[in-house]
């Protein structure tokens, strides 16, 4: 990854139908208590200015077109931080009629449309802990190592 991105990570918060628990934890991680700014993290309000998307929720079909447009608007190199069990693999909604089942399914759709994502970082938890989000930023910056290997299995029908 580019050294330039590592020192300055501008994030955009993208809710794709989450229950808001992860969103509250994101706000918590960006408060002065956790001081994400010391790692170069800054919250921006437009995906055009962002480097990484803080994606929460299992991605509902209703939100899918907007999510794709938001990801397209992020100039490359672009990264996704999949936050919470829902974003990581669909969570309790992994096989329901109204959601696509998290970021792994989204990546397939993006690939079919020719939209490239330069890196995806999975942060499991229901909801995630603010420390876990900062850990993911540490991995993105290359100062920490991944803890576990992520593997998603579809439910057997």
């Amino acid at each position, binding site marked *: 990854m580019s050294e*330039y*991105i590592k*020192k*300055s990570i501008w994030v955009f918060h993208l809710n794709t139908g989450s229950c808001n628990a992860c969103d509250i934890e994101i706000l918590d991680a960006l408060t*002065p208590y956790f001081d994400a*700014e010391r790692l*170069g993290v800054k919250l921006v309000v437009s995906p*055009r200015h962002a480097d990484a998307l803080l994606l929460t929720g299992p991605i509902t079909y209703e939100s899918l077109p907007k999510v794709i447009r938001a990801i397209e608007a992020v*100039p490359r190199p672009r990264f996704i931080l999949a936050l919470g069990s829902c974003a990581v693999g669909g969570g309790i909604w992994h096989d329901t009629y109204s959601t696509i089942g998290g970021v792994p399914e989204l990546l397939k759709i993006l690939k079919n449309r020719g939209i490239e994502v330069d890196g995806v970082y999975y942060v499991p938890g229901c909801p995630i802990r603010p420390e876990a989000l900062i850990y993911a930023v540490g991995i993105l910056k290359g100062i920490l190592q991944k803890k576990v290997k992520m593997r998603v299995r579809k439910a057997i029908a």
Partner: protein
Amino acid sequence: MSLDFINAGLVLSSITTLLFIVPILDSIERKVKAAIHSRIGPPILQTWYDIRKLFAKKLSVIPNPFHVVFFLFLYMMLSIMSITYFITAVLVPMWNSIMVLIILITILQTTFIVLPFVTSNPFAIIGATREVLLVLVNEIVFFIAMALLIFFSGETYLSSLPYIHPTPAYLILAAILFIVGYVSCGRQPFDIAEAEPEIASGILVELTGPLLGVFVYANLVRRALFKLIPVYVLIAPFTGSNMYALITSLIILPILWVIYAGLAALFGRSRVDIAPVSLLKLYSILFSITIILYLVFK
């Protein structure tokens, strides 16, 4: 008068140093804010890292790209040119330098207003409309204040200000220029053009990657210019030499930057919708005091 070697060296070193330290001043502001929050805060070069990162991003195609790029680079060139002209005019006597500075700043502010309009984004246009309203109040006051400065001091040279006698009316005028500088920097509650959470960065919304990097840097240079002018006007009559006045102004600049940041934190919860009206009332009172003081101490 021709430039001698000392002046030429001072002009070059001042401009180069300023253009390099302006993003660092922004980082210092962020560091001070972090200290108030009892946190570590970003590194001292964080704003440089941000700008460098933006230049490393891919350039996306934006609506109306020719006009946007034209006005953006005009804005950056004018910011750098204005600050260069200001420093040169302080050290070297230039005919009507105050008026030339007013003209340069007028073109600079106009470019800043036009830029979001040409992006054709509704959020950007809302932000630009708000900026126009603010500029109507603020810039006109700036012109009047500079005109009164020429009238009170009897000088059109920036380099002659150290040799005038400071009167109470002159000092109130300098205070007006400090307020104009604060408003022109786009700090709270006068950041209604950007209005980050409300209209998604407003004037900045269409800019991305290197274009945003150019805008961020030009904006920081503009902020430095609007801080240097009032500091120089206030300091100059007390120093007695234009060289000392410039050096003192450059030393005070980071302190003023931090003071403005502190004021912005205090005004964080003030009402944005009544900001231009309150500003107009404040300016009216200060101008009345200036003119009364001038007539009394004439």
